[in-house]
């Protein structure tokens, strides 16, 4: 048996970002099939345009269109692509100096093997069929069709002529999803293994004798590693609570319901769980509650083995018994 329990976790969020005037111009161009560069006061023509001038620190206001054709200035081979990259098969990342620009642009280069890439090779943009105004509107670069690529693209670095567009790109959505193997600490692992046996385990600090549940690797009060395992009672006292009235994504119980801190008998730190089988408005500080477990066949190494807590019917605990744990 491994020392610790682990499980896969995916953390994902779709960020909506406002683009501002400079990147908005760039993304509008991408959507319209045009590469917009910024001209800086030191004479550089940069794609994507920098939002602020590196010398004057003023917002970039001068834009030029550059060619979708250019030359590779550096490249590397991605032999083992990771999730989210432009291709899920080997490809190159390249820095491409677009004709008309003075600084290279980072994007993917779609070739079958590193033998097909050389520094200096001519490449061209391959546009995505459906474009939304994002960096991925460029599917990738590919080797230029006629060797030097002087086709029907716009003349290099033509200044001015900003295209007017009725619906400029002002926002983009950039999804981020990261996959992890989450490992519990040894103490948390013991806690989850205990739950799989119907037990609630804590750890006692050898210095101050406080009992933590769920257990922590070190006593937060004095920093001592916790040592002794302690099995806790399945009864406890509500120290504080919240009536959840607000619906939210992923909610499993229909509001209103009660989320409470329960100070298990024998523990020195309260434990967050649900209080059910009682009208929300009747839950109060000091209420005595007990754990209600799901049917044993549904148990795993999870806190969800305990369905919720319910009132025991005992008289309320005296305030002094939990006043130090609020």
């Amino acid at each position, binding site marked *: 048996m491994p020392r610790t329990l682990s499980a896969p976790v995916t953390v994902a969020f779709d960020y909506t970002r406002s683009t501002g005037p400079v990147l908005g111009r760039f993304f509008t161009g991408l959507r319209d099939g045009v590469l917009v560069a910024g001209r800086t006061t030191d004479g550089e023509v940069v794609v994507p345009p920098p939002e602020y001038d590196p010398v004057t620190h003023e917002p970039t206001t001068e834009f030029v269109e550059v060619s979708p054709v250019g030359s590779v200035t550096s490249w590397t081979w991605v032999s083992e692509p990771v*999730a989210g990259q432009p291709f899920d098969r080997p490809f190159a990342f390249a820095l491409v100096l677009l004709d008309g620009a003075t600084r290279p642009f980072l994007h993917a280069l779609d070739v079958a093997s590193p033998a097909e890439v050389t520094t200096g090779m001519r490449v061209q943009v391959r546009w995505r069929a459906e474009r939304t105004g994002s960096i991925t509107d460029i599917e990738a670069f590919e080797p230029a069709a006629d060797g030097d690529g002087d086709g029907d693209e716009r003349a290099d670095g033509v200044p001015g002529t900003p295209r007017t567009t009725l619906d400029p790109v002002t926002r983009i959505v950039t999804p981020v999803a990261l996959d992890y193997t989450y490992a519990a600490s040894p103490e948390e692992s013991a806690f989850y293994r205990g739950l799989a046996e119907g037990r609630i385990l804590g750890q006692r600090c050898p210095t101050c004798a406080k009992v933590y549940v769920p257990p922590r690797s070190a006593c937060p009060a004095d920093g001592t590693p916790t040592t002794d395992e302690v099995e806790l009672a399945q009864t406890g006292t509500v120290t504080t609570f919240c009536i959840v009235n607000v619906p939210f994504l992923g909610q499993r119980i229909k509001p209103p319901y009660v989320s409470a801190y329960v100070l298990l008998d024998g523990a020195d730190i309260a434990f967050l769980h649900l209080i059910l089988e009682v009208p929300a408005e009747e839950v109060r500080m000091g209420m005595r509650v007990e754990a209600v477990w799901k049917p044993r066949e549904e148990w795993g190494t999870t806190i969800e083995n305990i369905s919720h807590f319910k009132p025991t019917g005992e008289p309320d605990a005296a305030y002094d018994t939990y006043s130090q744990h609020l």
Partner: protein
Amino acid sequence: MRDVAVVGFAQRQMQDFDGSPTCVELLVPVFKECYEQTGWTRRDIGFWCSGSSDYLAGRSFSFVQAVDAIGVIPPVNESHVEMDLAWAMYEAWLKIQTGEVDTALVYAFGKSSAGVLRRTLGLQLDPYTMTPLWPDTVSLAGLQARAGIDAGLWDEQAMAEVALRSLTDAEKNEHAVRRGGSSVPELLARPLYADPLRKHDCAPVTDGAAAIVLAAGDRAREVRDRPAWLSGISHHIDPMSMGTRDLTRSPSAARSAAALDLTGVDVAELHAPFSHQELVLHRELALADDVRINPSGGALTGNPMFSAGGIRVGEAARRIWAGESDKALAHATSGPALQQNLVCTLGAATGSTTGGHR
């Protein structure tokens, strides 16, 4: 300026940490070593500062949970930077300069193996024009390595020589996760991984933690006969975009070095997670040929994220304490392709402290 020295250092480096991403269970023994080295308890520490990233942990506020390892009753004076330990140390150095505290324990931790590190670090990039392509750390370094090869500034042979020296030196480093040199021809015969990089050109994915203890004046002298006095610290940043800088150079490293007096440096611990980056740094820091580079083996033999830069400081300090060096340089980097750089000097003699922001 107050005289401030590194007086304690502890580290852990491992390929896979069998524990939680908050690394509390790893930090407790690291702190214990620092207490043993200094003879202090946590009550003797005036300021705490950590370096880490929630993106490594996949868990929000992982640095708050790590505070359990300190013990915070009575309350402690604590801060955090989403950066390497070396930058946390810089914050602590500033705190001591204010006169508010005389001692600090700075620490860092990270479980790189919880996710796919080279991908996770894509979150350090421009979220509009770079992250959506997920250019991974190794690819960005590959672009940099190729730029230097094409410019004739280094070649694969020179990169392999760096890797060989690192792997050989790491044989003497109990903390290294990769060690054992063979020969340059053998290294060059290995397959390319991210052309032009081979795996030994890239730092191994490493979990770990490290801690450094700082103390001012007499507080430092009570701990060490030869405290490693921080005689200068400087850090600068280059643009994040790969297109707007010359990837064969590191202007921010050069500028950081220029703010310091590097005369007499005999050892340099450089945080170069890719072999060619050591060559870039060697040039930008204008190190003399007889300066001993990375006697620890460097980041190519162990690179715990958010600790490895600070470990360079600790390794340099150890050599001052032991009398093996009279003046050492330590360097830390962060961001893509040497974007951000911190350089400091440590010496056996006090005085001549220079900050980098004059």
